[in-house]
């Protein structure tokens, strides 16, 4: 089945069930979260994954028949069909608590810069690429969004509509 931008199509469980070669599988999505961020697959045990729009992956607690011709299903979690898969800010805020790898912790001033949408020079000796950015809120490290780390710089990936001067 070709990708349809108006319908939600459930991700195939594994490669064997895949008829669109470009569509991610549930197994690949779970592997992405585990391998890149250390978020265990069980985190998503009760959720179904869907694609609407090329590479836009949604996650839902509900279980409607596929394809589903509706306006929204759960939340967007991931962009696939590109070289580096990119998690959404919303997914990171909701599920990034369990992350153990590629997590960059900011102080309050750095977090303020990040949330305003501004890039900043920072030292980071881990992998380059998309990172889960955290800062302290109410005495604990909390995921605040997604950053892209390259060339000594943390590039804020906070979407325009979510940026705030705090």
């Amino acid at each position: 089945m070709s990708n349809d931008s108006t319908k939600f199509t459930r991700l195939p469980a594994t490669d064997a069930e895949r008829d669109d070669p470009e569509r991610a599988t549930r197994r690949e999505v779970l592997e992405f979260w585990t391998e890149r961020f250390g978020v265990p697959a069980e985190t998503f045990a009760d959720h179904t994954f869907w694609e609407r729009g090329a590479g836009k992956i949604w996650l839902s607690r509900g279980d409607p028949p596929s394809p589903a011709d509706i306006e929204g299903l759960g939340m967007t979690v991931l962009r696939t069909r590109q070289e580096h898969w990119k998690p959404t800010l919303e997914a990171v805020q909701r599920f990034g608590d369990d992350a153990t790898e590629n997590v960059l912790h900011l102080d309050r001033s750095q977090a303020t810069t990040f949330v305003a949408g501004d890039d900043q020079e920072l030292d980071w000796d881990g992998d380059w690429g998309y990172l889960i950015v955290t800062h302290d809120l109410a005495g604990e490290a909390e995921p605040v969004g997604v950053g892209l780390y390259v060339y000594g710089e943390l590039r804020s990936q906070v979407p325009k509509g979510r940026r705030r001067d705090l």
Partner: protein
Amino acid sequence: MEQLERYRAIVDDFAAFRAACDRPLPSAVRVNTIKATVEQVRVALDDAGIAAEPVGWHDGLFVLPEQSAGANWPYFHGWTHGQEEVSAIPATVLDPQPGERVWDACAAPGSKTTQLAALMDDRGEVVATDNNLGRISALRTNTERLGATSVAVTHEDGRNHSLKPFGGAGYDRALVDVPCSCEGTIRKNPDALADWSLSHVEGVAGVQKGILARAVQVTEPGGTVVYSTCTFAPEENEAVLDHVLAAEDCELVDYDLPLTHRDGVTEWDGESFDPAVERAKRIYPHHNDTGGFFCAKLEVTG
């Protein structure tokens, strides 16, 4: 605000009512328990130096006397959502349980939708319907910011809601928080009555009847439907209930509400309604220093 004069006969201490309608309301926030606990929000607001006053009847609501709801860290993390006290009533009365299927018939911009999802511990399915694509976009933004994964959004007129995309299954509960003449929001929006007319009240009442009837039809026998408005007009409140009680298989049930309120009115403008409409509750601005609201709980019988 001369429109409110028509309620002189049904509102006790009318002068206090009018005076309350003239006073602005501070902003209030609801704790989004999908992402944070009440205690975490309390600490985060305190750390940020934001004054937050708890609300007596609901653990998860704070009034922010000095600040808007959206310009702080807990908001950015989706820990809080700007929502007025009375707006938190209907989802609380509906009392949805984890794992249930719930329909939110007029969902955008999603304050009550996300409250339903939170009450269900984000487990089950909340089908959120609205007929306006612009408002659906706000609904989706709020759903995502609050991290609700159990919400499915449909674009349709609630009067013609289709169960087809969900395989035909009916609902355990439905929330019918209808578009209305918004008289009760005057303290938040002083222009709320600028376009008020009796013909608008009567016209919107027809839509309200259609949506409430559909909600009763798609809810399983034994299931619960909550009907609410933010207006005082009996045409949009008790008269709508009276119509649906006669036309559909349902009855009005009593419920507890820990806010000062008055019973539904059984007579208005020469008309009398099914005596059961007394079980609905009217919330007036001067009794609890809130906005105005109307809320009724129905059980589906057929």
